[in-house]
Every structure is written in C-alpha cells, then in structure tokens.
C-alpha cells in the first residue's frame, strides 16, 4: 500500500475546475513530484493535500486513513509537514524561535506548564530548543539562529522554512515549489539536501515544482498535470519523452489550438 493515495481529486471554484479527477500515489521512501505548466492546478492540488482547501470530491488517504475532513493542524499531527511557495516565516521572531515552532506537534505543554514551569515543562523546553538547533545545524544555518527572520537573505529564509518543517520530525514532507527564487548554486544545494532528507532522516518527499531540471534530477516518479488533469505519469525519462508532456510544456506548434500551452497566451 502506498503511503499516500489520491483518487479522483477534484477541486472546483465556481465554474472553474482547477483539479479534475486527479489520481496518484506517493510510495514510502520515494521522492515524488507533481509538475505542470503555470495554472495547471498544482497549487490547488497541494492545498487539498495539506487541508487548506476542502476538495469538491475525491479521496486522499494517508496510511489507509482518510484525510479529507482533517484541518491543516491535524494533518501536521499525522507527521505530514509542508512548506510554502512564497516563504511564510514568522517574520518578527528569531530564526531559532521560527524553527522551534516545528516542535509544536511533538510537544504538549500548555498554560499550566507555562505558568508553573514544572520539571516536565522545563525538560520539554530544553528538548524543543535542542531539536531546533539540531535541525538548523542539519540545514547549515545554525550560525544565523539569533537573527530576526525578516532580516535574512531570501535563500536563508527558505532554509529556515525547511529547518522548521524538519523540526516536526515528519514522515512525509510536502514541498511547494522549493526551488522558486533560488539561484543555480542554491538549487544544487537543495537537490543535495532533499536527498539527505531521505537518506539520513528517512523522510518521504513529495514536491510540486515547475523547475524541470530540479525535478528530473531528483524525483523517481513524476505526475504531470495540465488543465487540472493528469496527462502523464512515470519516471523522469518516461515523462520527458511523452509527447503529451512535450506539448503541454512547449505547445503544439499551433497557436490557434485552444488546447495549446498556457505559456503561449
């Protein structure tokens, strides 16, 4: 059984069908990607997976359990962590505090623990702190831990977001266009990092992306989406040679064709 199974996922906004009957699976221990041209419905599909949208119809199961009615925070408690396309950090707080937020779902002190500062509360605080520092070290930005998030460079803001997701000790990591806004060197580091996520931490990675070079290099299985529908699925080599995919990305050569690439518009 696959770790996550998506069947017939449909997301409708009024008259617009953003995702139309999408099926795919994420196998445990793999790096899987969902790609497609701009406007193909990737982000809508992603938001359904993370509980930010409630799909119109279809099913999403994780380890055999339905995730359809779960709220975003409940999905996080299932050890499924996400990042955002446009980095969403807690801007006025330090990098360390940002990463400590990751441990929220694996800790449980509440008002009582905060006020009494009981032994167990202090122990948990220490664990949250050490866990955050370990994650920052893993990503390689431990030296920036005291900086306020908004003062970081864009690349470091992205890295902070990855560290924050890691701090929750996820089983499945959902990355929303992780390469957006990164330069070639940073992309190289990202590829290495995503491989280390799986190799050293045993995390299954699912990403949506339209940067082809990154996707082709790291993913084992790719699902291609266009106009909300799945048009291809397979290994990078299979997908790259699929005529439908080439059409979707490069256009059919016939600009008058209504089904042409959205890039041509």
């Amino acid at each position, binding site marked *: 059984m696959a770790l996550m199974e998506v069947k017939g996922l449909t997301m409708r906004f009024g008259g617009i069908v953003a995702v139309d009957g999408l099926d795919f699976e994420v196998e445990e221990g793999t790096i899987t990607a969902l790609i497609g041209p701009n406007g193909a419905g990737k982000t809508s599909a992603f938001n359904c997976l993370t509980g930010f949208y409630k799909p119109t119809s279809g099913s999403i199961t994780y380890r055999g359990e339905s995730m359809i009615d779960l*709220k975003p925070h409940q999905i996080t408690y299932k050890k499924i962590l996400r990042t955002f396309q446009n980095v969403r950090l807690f801007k*006025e707080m330090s990098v360390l505090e940002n990463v400590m937020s990751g441990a929220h779902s694996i800790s449980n002190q509440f008002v009582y623990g905060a006020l009494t500062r009981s032994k167990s509360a202090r122990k948990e605080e220490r664990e949250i702190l050490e866990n955050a520092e370990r994650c920052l070290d893993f990503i390689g930005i431990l030296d920036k831990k005291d900086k306020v998030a908004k003062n970081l460079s864009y690349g470091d803001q992205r890295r902070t977001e990855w560290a924050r997701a890691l701090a929750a000790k996820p089983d499945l990591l959902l990355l929303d266009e992780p390469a957006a806004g990164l330069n070639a060197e940073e992309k190289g580091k990202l590829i290495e990092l995503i491989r280390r996520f799986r190799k050293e931490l045993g995390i299954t990675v699912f990403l949506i992306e339209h940067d082809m070079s990154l996707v082709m290099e790291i993913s084992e299985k790719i699902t291609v989406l266009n106009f909300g529908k799945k048009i291809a699925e397979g290994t990078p080599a299979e997908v790259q040679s699929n005529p439908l995919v080439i059409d979707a990305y490069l256009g059919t050569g016939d600009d008058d064709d209504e089904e042409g690439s959205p890039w041509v518009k």
Partner: protein
Amino acid sequence: MEKLNSADAVDVKKLGFFGDLVEKCYTLMDNKKIKWTVLAVILGLMILFPFTTTNYWISVVQNAMFFALLAMGLNVIVGYTGLCHFGYAAKFAIGAYTTAVLVRQFGWDFWLTLPVAVVTSILAAIIIGGPTLRLRSDYLAIVTLGFGEIVRITARNLQITGAASGLSGIRRPSFFGIHLTSVTHWYYVFLVLVVIYIIVSYRIKNSRFGRALEYIREDEDAAQAMGINTTKFKLFAFIVGSVMGGIAGSFFTVRMGAISPQSFQFLMSANILLAVVLGGMGKIPGVILGAAFISMFPEFFRNVPFVGDARMLFFGLLLVIVMIRRPQGLWPDRRR
C-alpha cells in the same frame, strides 16, 4: 511590506547614537548578574518610593501600577496573539463586579471572592470568545467593542450591581492581620501584583503556549501548518487575558471601596489598548511603561501653567506624533 523590510535592513548597518546605546544596553543585560542587579535596584527603589513622597504621588503611582496590570493582561490578547480587543474594560468589570457583589451583597471575605472572579472571567471569555474567535480580526474588534458596552449597560441596569450609582461601602480586606486601609498599603499590594504579573507574562512568553500565540500573530496559516490549533490557542489567550483583567478588577474594587459603571466606559478600554500599543505590543517593559505614561501624563501636566488646562489636547497630539514616528511602539527592539 517589501519596502518596510529593506528599510529595516538599512537600519542594521547604521544604528546612530540612540541605536548604539540600545544595543549596548541589551548586550549589558545579556550578563545575568548585571540584569538581576538592575532589576533588584528598580524593585528596591519602588519599595522605598512611598517613604520619599506624599500620599498624592503614592496613589498616582499605585494607579499607574493598576493600569500596568490591565495592560499586561491585554498584552496577552493583543500583543502576543495579535487579536483586536476594544472592550477590555468589560474583562476587568467582570472581576470587579464579582468581588463587589459578593463582598457588599453577600458579605463574603474578599480573598474568597478571587477564585470566583477567576471562574466568572473564564466563563465570560468562553461566552464571548467561543463563537467569535473564528471571525477575522476586524470583526472581532466590533464584537469586543459591543461586548464592552453590553457588560457596562447590564451592570447599570441590574439591582444587584447597584444600577447606575454602583456599589459603595465595600469592606476592605485584611492581610495577615493588617487591615489594608492606607494608600501605602495598597501601593505595596499593587507592587506585589505587578511583580507577579511580570513573572506570569514572561513565563507565558517563553513557553510553548506563548510562542504558539506569537506564531498565530505573525502568520496564522504558517502557524496552522506547524500543527497549532489556532482557534483553541486564541481562546486560551482570551481566557488568560480575561483572568488577568478580572483579578486586577477585583483588587481595584476593594482598593476603591466603591465601583460604578462609570469606571468601565469605552474610554477605559481605549486607554488600556493605547498603553499596549504605545509601549510596544508584546514587549513587557514597553507595555508597563506605556501604562505608566498613559495614566501619569495628565497628572504631571496638571499644574503646569498654560498647558494645565489643555493637557488632554497636548496628550492627544503627543500620541499622534509617537504613533507616526514609532508605529512599533516606544520600547526599542534589538537589531539582529
């Protein structure tokens, strides 16, 4: 937003004289010994203060401390969690009336009314917060504003709360045999409360609970993505803020010996909010100084010629200038 960020980035490089000074102070405070010495000296001065001055100034400072309690309570809701709250006077009215009614109408001992005030504050927070905390912040502002008025008008119309004239002749309590009657007694009671509230505020801030509140303030979606049940945490922020206001209200009642709906007008809610925003939302020293400033400023200028009569006008002008020049509040942040 982008513009703001780049402006901040520039600030990091050139701090100027004042910025350098702030940075030096923060660095000095990193040393635990120096930090505790400074705090001990401040506390010592506060303890000695009543011996150096008149009853009038003692009560002015005591009133400022009462204001600081309210501001710290509201700070949990507005400063940490970033929720709009325009009816905070209602929160302390609930504590105040609980104590007033129990002491005056039922002859309870003051200290026994405190747990009841805590319970009524929690109930009020759940009643108002439960259905409304799902609302976006601007709607929440309207609801809390309405709630503030409902509580005041209810108190004005109920017999048990003494209607429009309120309740008077509320017996003052004793504390280990000391009957708390003089201004100085109450000064020390409020000093102790301020110290407790500061400890509570810091403990909340540096805990999983408090950080979750700040994550919600900074970015609600990202907070949810990190597993924070935002509705639940907002409700608990509401409850904690409400209890802090309620307890302050209970003490206010017995200190004054009388309360009336007049004390809980919208102006009161606005002033507490002003103290929090002026001092710097979420920053505890800033909030305390903001409260001191709001409550003491009119007193300082009462006797200055020309300014005296128009002091509220100058007060308003000053606030406008501060808010334009320093929208993040007066208390300076560390540049990192």
